[in-house]
């Protein structure tokens, strides 16, 4: 087992453990911290998969902005009451997880090493290539995404604003 395979399994184990912690820890703040760990590990995966731009965006947008928003809402609402376990859903959830896992079984028997299609081009994944693809082929979705973000801003302000009695 060479170094890259070992690194993959180490990071994969850490990712699975931190995702399990997100789901099974009782304290909401601890869940948020575990989610930050999981998102950072996924960012490392992105960078090792020749997507440095997306990896940096992942750190900035998810581990930065979205998690700060989550922590702010946790602080704002201060859910001090520990939740009661929901017994009836446990069987259904574990059944669903086993089903999703069973769909993976064919993947385990199909592990020929893939050809490396991008070994020749060093530019792959660079911000230049991402920008070329984004602003040539995907200009319209890009503009729609900006409109979506504007709608989200306005909607969040309207939803979270305290209603005045008229």
């Amino acid at each position, binding site marked *: 087992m060479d170094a890259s395979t070992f690194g993959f399994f180490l990071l994969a184990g850490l*990712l699975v453990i931190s995702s399990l912690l997100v789901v099974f820890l009782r304290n909401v703040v601890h869940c948020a911290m575990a989610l930050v760990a999981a998102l950072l590990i996924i960012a490392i995966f992105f960078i090792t998969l020749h997507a440095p731009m997306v990896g940096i965006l992942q750190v900035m947008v998810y581990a930065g902005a979205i998690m700060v928003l989550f922590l702010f809402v946790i602080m704002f609402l201060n859910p001090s009451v520990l939740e009661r376990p929901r017994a009836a859903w446990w069987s259904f959830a574990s059944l669903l*997880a086993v089903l*999703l896992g069973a769909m993976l079984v064919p993947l385990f028997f199909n592990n020929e090493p893939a050809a490396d*299609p991008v070994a020749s081009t060093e530019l792959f994944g660079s911000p230049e290539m991402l920008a070329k*693809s984004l602003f040539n082929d995907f200009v319209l979705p890009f503009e729609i995404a900006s409109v979506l973000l504007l709608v989200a801003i306005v909607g969040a302000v309207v939803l979270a604003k305290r209603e005045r009695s008229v």
Partner: protein
Amino acid sequence: MLPVNYYLILSAVVFAIGVVGVLIRRNLIVVLMSIELMLNAVNLTFIAFSRYLGSMVGQVAVFFVMAVAAAEAVIGLAIIISVYRQRRSLDPQDMQLLKW
């Protein structure tokens, strides 16, 4: 180079963990966090295929998924705040106004 299905298996496992979180947790904030986890598992699949097919389209798709996820988190948290103001609870079981 590792086979692509290592990444597929890893992201599917993370996705399944997120599904379990949505189903068994009784705290709306943690449910939203599990949804973020599921979206990130899908992003990992996109990036892995983009690497193994040598195409940038996967990375562009991840870019858009991130934008949509940010909007979803913002709106979801705003809804949680507004629901908490009315019900004084974060338990999804308490939101059964439409339940017959």
